[in-house]
């Protein structure tokens, strides 16, 4: 009797645990089912690279080229801001900071991660947009503004994983380098960072996924213009912000096209996840 009960509990827990896989499968199925038909109809080439997006319920023109470019620019910009800054903070916290400061930084980074994205977007809109407008020109609502704020938003991802992998480098590496007469900086730059590179790589990829997927903050700062941006100071739109803005009222073919945009985003994020996974697996093996 007891043994049977135990076995049932084990089975039930297996089913519960598989809910994660089930959820992922249902999400994938429904997003693709809603978005794939229009991609097939238009052809992936035309959908991805055509920059004319003129939605109508029937017979509109649906090309997400401009949004894809906008997303790429904003994501790259976020990495340019976030990766050096995040890596510096990770090095600081793992190697340079006195104990008390290092125990202060970890919770602070967690708080940074806990701030809702609408707050980031709002502060960007109220503070950074006017600043860019008066000091650098253009409308202020721009690729640059969104990229800077996104760069800050991805800091927690980059810092926490990079710091963990820096701390995981065996002490012998550090001692060896120092014993050979290297300065502390030479040790960090020449030994520790290369030794931690798979973890750092994984953190960059995860940060990239976060920047690419962010929606609300970007909507508030990028200006949502369907033009292809010609400079960093131009307004633009991204794959995510276009979904976020137009889903509220889209119907018919237009809604289908938005789901198709979701398919592209989803596929891209999954590839990034797999890449991050491969990176961290290499770290475990090393």
């Amino acid at each position, binding site marked *: 009797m007891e043994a049977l*009960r135990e076995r049932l509990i*084990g089975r039930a*827990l*297996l089913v*519960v*645990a598989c809910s*994660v*896989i089930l*959820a*992922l499968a*249902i*999400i994938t199925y*429904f997003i693709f089912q809603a978005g794939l038909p229009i991609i097939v109809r238009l052809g992936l080439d035309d959908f991805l690279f055509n920059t004319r997006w003129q939605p109508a319920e029937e017979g509109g023109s649906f090309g997400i080229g401009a949004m894809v470019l906008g997303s790429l620019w904003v994501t790259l910009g976020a990495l340019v801001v976030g990766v*050096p*800054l995040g890596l*510096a*903070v990770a*090095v*600081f916290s793992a190697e*340079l900071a006195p104990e008390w400061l290092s125990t202060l*930084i970890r919770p*602070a980074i*967690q*708080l*940074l991660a*806990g*701030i*809702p994205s*609408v*707050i*980031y977007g*709002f*502060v960007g*809109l109220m503070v950074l947009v006017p600043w860019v407008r008066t000091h650098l020109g253009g409308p202020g609502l721009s690729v640059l503004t969104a990229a800077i704020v996104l760069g*800050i938003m991805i800091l927690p991802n980059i*810092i926490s994983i990079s710091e963990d992998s820096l701390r995981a480098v065996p002490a012998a590496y550090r001692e060896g380098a120092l014993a050979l007469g290297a*300065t502390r*900086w*030479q040790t960090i*730059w020449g030994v520790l960072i290369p030794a931690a590179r798979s973890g750092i790589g994984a953190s960059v990829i995860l940060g990239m*996924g*976060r920047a*690419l*997927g962010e*929606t*609300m903050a970007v*909507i*508030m700062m990028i200006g949502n213009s369907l033009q292809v941006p010609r400079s960093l100071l131009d307004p633009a739109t991204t794959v*995510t912000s276009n*979904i976020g803005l137009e*889903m509220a009222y889209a119907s018919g073919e237009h809604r289908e096209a*938005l789901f198709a945009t*979701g398919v592209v*985003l*989803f596929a891209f*994020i*999954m590839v990034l*996840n797999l890449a*991050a*996974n491969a990176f961290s697996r290499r770290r475990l093996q090393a």
Partner: protein
Amino acid sequence: MTAGKTRRAGAQVAERIAFALIWTSALATLAVLAFIVLYILDLGLPHVSWRFLTSAPEEMGREGGILPTIIGTIVLTLGAVAIAAPLGIGAAVFLTEYTWESPVTRAIRFGAEALAGVPSIIFGLFGFIFFVTYLKMGWSILSGSLTLAIMILPTIIRTAEEAIRTVPNPYRDVSFGLGATRWQMVTSVVLPNALPGIITGIILAIGRSVGETAAVIFTAGTALNMPTSLVSPLRTMAVHFYILAIEGISLEKAYATGAILIITTLTVNVLANWLIVRAVRRHRRKS
């Protein structure tokens, strides 16, 4: 001066410059955090009053308070946690106590990791097409909670799994030695000892739900009425804040709502942090 000495001096200059940059980066990051929080509080708190918290909005939020959005946030978050916590803790117990590394556990872990990387706008699209449209739940508490539950599931699984793994093995051995079944061991020894860590995960998940916008706006809707049943649509604080700001309804009210939003998420995160620190200390004392 020999060549070696010059190189040594150069290395020291390089080190000084690099360290200065690193210190600046760290301080700048802390400054950005402080700036965001203080900026919102400074401009928002003067407009927060007891009446603001306890009255309904008027004229789309131009006047009045935010009570229905506070209730909406609480209801939606509680719903999400009520669904995700049992599933997440169950999955964590399965992964740690009921199985060994196998293709099945690898698939489950991969699923959780992949789910954690899915952007919230995708959850919004999915919740809309699946819960709102396909299952005909409409924009409702139910649709919103279910969508949020899936979104926070990976966080709960990961933190619960970590917490369970820190329970020392001798505890399990003693429990088995006394004749307990595996399930008795889990409920009377493992879960109570892992509780602080599990609660930390749940609190982090609450923080994520409270601040979420993209996944909520397309599943729970934007209705400003007080929700009356599980199928009523509602508007959370984060969604209200977003709408106030982007539609330029009222900057004053936007700042005030933002202040409440940031106080809530900060409190939640500080609480989670405090629990982690306490749990780590307790763990150190034991081992």
